[in-house]
């Protein structure tokens, strides 16, 4: 089963969760996702996700000078984003619980 397909379903929620930790920028988001094990992520998919979140009003974006000098986009979560993130966490918990029952239940039956 393709890992990238599985990731696409939860990517928006995970990116929102990273931004909710504190104001951040593209490179930092990529690094956090990579450290968390999202190394199979197609990196170009991050920016369309950020654009979608911005257009939906779930994150806010401001431009400021980075420590190295060039203009950088900094992302922060909005109130609507926090609400959406809370809902995503609930949905994710429910789905993983159901999937766990099925997958662990299947293994138990196979072992017996």
């Amino acid at each position, binding site marked *: 089963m393709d890992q990238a397909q599985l990731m696409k379903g939860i990517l928006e929620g995970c990116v929102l969760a990273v931004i909710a930790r504190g104001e951040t*920028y*593209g*490179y930092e988001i*990529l690094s956090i996702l*990579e450290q968390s094990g999202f190394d199979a992520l*197609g*990196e*170009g*998919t991050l*920016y*369309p996700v950020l*654009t*979608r979140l911005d257009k939906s009003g779930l994150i806010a974006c401001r*431009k400021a*000078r*980075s420590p*190295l*000098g*060039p*203009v*950088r*986009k900094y992302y922060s979560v909005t109130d609507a984003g926090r609400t959406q993130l809370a809902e995503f966490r609930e949905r994710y918990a429910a789905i993983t619980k159901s999937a766990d029952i099925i997958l662990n239940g299947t293994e138990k039956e196979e072992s017996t």
Partner: protein
Amino acid sequence: MNAELLKSQLTGEYREVFERAQTYIMMSDFEERYTEDKLSELFDLLLTAQSEQKPVTQLVGRDVPRFLNDYFSDHGLREHLLNAAETLRRVCWVVLVISLLNWLAAEHPIADFFTVRTDIIYVLGGIIGGLLFVQAARALRPAAVNAEKNHYGLWCLAVIVVFVLMIMAESILIGDRALALPVWMLLAGTGAYLLVYYTVQSICRLKRYGTVRDTQKALYKDAYYQRITDMTYEKGVAEGMLSQYRRLLKRGKITEEGYLAYWQEKHCKSAQSEKYATWFLALFTLAAIAFTGIENLHDGQSWVDTAFFALIIITMEYFIWRFFGKIEKRSAAAREHILTECAANGQTLPAYLDELVKPVQPNETAH
């Protein structure tokens, strides 16, 4: 924001990715602000990775064309409409200026010299040709982006060739056909569009940024971008000075130690030469106007002809003076900086110039 100047800060594989993004943009019909935004964000990403020496494949993956397709996939309907509005704004300015000139010249004897056609057919032909050109560039894009090696210059040339062929085809197809419109209609139409455009733009800016000024432009003119511009310019001046040094050294006309003093003297004289050049241009312009005035008086022509000629020649000479004056001012500032730094470092000028023209190293950035 000058993408070429930003690119000069990147090296190796980071620069390669940035250049591929430029090729992608060149073959696409993207809105200017969108392009600026995306290139700026990509530059920040690549520069940060370069400074931390993170492999570029960890950022963009091994499939760069796929990364670029995903990266630019958010250019939607809104951006296309903004682009269309912006293009129409430019066309309106051209049509407005030409119509104004035609209206001013219409009732006057100088009409023979300055009448321009108010043929709307060339403008319509240009718009249709432009749309076809965009489709042609988009059709070539996959080949450009998927090529193993990014021949940015070659694709630039291909785009220019397609553009020229379109212009030629347009001229042949239009031929002698004419679709003249009354000047007042063109003035009213273009004037109305521009008024609406700038009003809507001002309202949107006021709502979003609290000001009608273009804050994004101001952002890209700050000290960091100015420093890159100055550094790139200084490098160009240094390359010229180094090249001259090698020529003079070959002919035995200079020594390494004497080159700094040679340029310090030359630099002092250049400021004076610039003043003489400005005076010469001003006197030449006045002489040309006076001569034309006397000739017109002799031929019994109206003083308006002289005034009109004076207006045109003063405008042309002003822009020529400003253009070359700007270049000379920048060159003088770059030379001044080079000579001051070199003298402060205690190096010979050729040695200092040698260091200055070295390629940017991965950890060096214009802070």
